[in-house]
């Protein structure tokens, strides 16, 4: 697939994402309000109920809210728009057929579509940043620099690719099982829980649990980008984490390749 085609697919998908004006704005506004209001009121209530406890898992109230606002924003970029489910649905309903006829690689084409679909996430990110700056302060000890921002952007892009690669073998199960919705939900839950979406990894029990989590790929999805953005990780540790994530990515890609090549033999192209 040429870069020009890749960019065209990204552009096409972005145009699709904004082709329904009302839905676009409602989605953006609701996501922003929910993404900001839920952690704000939840953690304000938790800290108010325990006034003697200044930090939880090493984070103050504002620190915790900041973590969740960023993690919610990042989750849009990492997971993409219904990316995994989209793949399995196309196997299930036969929409995969049209891509098999095109002289292009399906998984790369879908990845480009996934990138294009992230456009609403950018708009949400701008709104959320504006809300945070208006209502809260960046907590002490948090240092957001140009370098940390650039590193975070690289990490988010890497996490997006890794998440996509991880979803390939799982969604490929649709060649055998047709409906893999429950697997997709399970993957999302596991990645969210062990990756720091639901709880910062620093809040997990210290010791072997945190050590194990550091070796798993899930950390790259949420905890690593947030820590990188907030300047809470050394450059060498960051590189090491990306290297480990890349190793996992290669493993997922190999498994995915195997699953898809076997599954392809079973594809029946239903619907035509």
């Amino acid at each position, binding site marked *: 697939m040429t870069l020009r*085609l890749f960019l065209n697919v990204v552009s*096409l998908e972005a145009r699709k994402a904004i082709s*329904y004006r009302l839905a676009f704005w409602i989605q953006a506004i609701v996501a922003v309000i929910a993404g900001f209001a839920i952690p704000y009121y939840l953690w304000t209530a938790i800290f108010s109920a325990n006034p003697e406890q200044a930090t939880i898992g090493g984070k103050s109230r504002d620190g915790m809210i900041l973590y969740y606002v960023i993690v919610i924003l990042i989750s849009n970029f990492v997971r993409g728009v219904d990316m995994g489910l989209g793949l399995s649905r196309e196997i299930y309903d*036969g929409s995969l057929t*049209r891509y098999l006829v095109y*002289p292009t690689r399906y998984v790369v084409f879908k990845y480009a579509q996934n990138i294009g679909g992230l456009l609403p996430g950018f708009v949400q990110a701008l709104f959320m940043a504006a809300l945070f700056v208006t209502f809260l302060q960046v907590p002490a000890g948090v240092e957001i620099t140009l370098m940390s921002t650039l590193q975070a952007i690289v990490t988010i892009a890497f996490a997006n690719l890794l998440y996509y690669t991880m979803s390939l073998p799982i969604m490929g199960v649709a060649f055998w099982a047709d409906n893999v919705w429950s697997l997709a939900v399970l993957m999302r839950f596991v990645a969210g829980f062990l990756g720091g979406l639901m709880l910062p990894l620093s809040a997990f029990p210290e010791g072997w649990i945190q050590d194990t989590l550091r070796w798993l790929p899930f950390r790259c999805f949420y905890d690593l980008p947030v820590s990188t953005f907030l300047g809470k990780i050394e450059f060498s540790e960051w590189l090491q984490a990306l290297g480990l994530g890349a190793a996992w990515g290669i493993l997922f890609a190999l498994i995915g390749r195997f699953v898809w090549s076997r599954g*392809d033999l079973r594809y*029946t*192209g239903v619907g*035509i």
Partner: protein
Amino acid sequence: MPLVDVQRLSKTFYVHKKEPGLLGSVRALLRRETIAKEAVREATFQIGEGEIVGLVGANGAGKTTIVKMLAGIVHPTSGDAQVLGHRPWQRDNRLRRQMALIMGQKAQLWWDLPAADCFLLLKEIYQIPDERYHKTLQDLAERLEVTQELTVQVRRLSLGERMKMELIAALLHQPKIVYLDEPTIGLDLTAQRTIRDFLLEYQREHRPAMILTSHYMEDIERLCQRIMIIRTGDIVYDGPLAEIATKYAQHKVVTAHLQRRGANERPSAVELARLGEVLQYDDSCVRIRMPRAEVAEGAAHILRRLSVADLAIEDVDIGTIIEQLIKARAQTGADA
């Protein structure tokens, strides 16, 4: 050298069986029975440049499965096929750049975008040079009379307009092989005619090999010189459409419209029955289905014995013959 060369191509699908009802569903959770369904059995044929071949058969006969294998969508269970020198299911981009699949029952364009945007993407996918792209798009859009609709969201187009856009999308890169799966399904008569005329014109100018599946006999009769009739996975006829009648229709129907005068001299029904099966015999008309070899003699007899105003000798409708061939259960060569 044929563009499409198919040798003993077979496909067996394995499908799960499930008993009806709640109990059946619960049982299926624990144990499922799998049954093998032979969709295509040892299909062998060749298609040359500029040919339009119609695949005709009942639902589930295997025609779409043949198209799917030749388009590289599904892998065969056994046998081989070469399309432009490539095995389609290996999905070589050199082949995919010269091939198109139009699915009447499955939209290929992006629903939420104007067709023009979809075409631009296809231009990149097929790496069509700018000048050729603009020229081809303009030509196709004008012929199909959809120039004004190019900027309208695909989902807002009528079914006929959408099908025309699908055709443009499939032909933009000027493929050498075109698979058309039910291209006129669900369209009104005018749209069907427009699409048939367009396909004929396109085929005359560009000479691609086309494989057409359709349940509409008019598509087949108008577009195909050659047809393959498929019955439960077997190709039971592969040859010129025109020869179907001579080969399988053992009878012709002779219709004579009678003049009013001379009614008293008319022969009896028994006499006419010696010529063949009398389908109609009244004051104004006589219709007799008679053996093909005896038509000349029978027609002469009618002209001698009756005051005929007009006489017509017709083959049995080709659609009816094909329908009978599709439905026939016997496996003997006599019926096929």
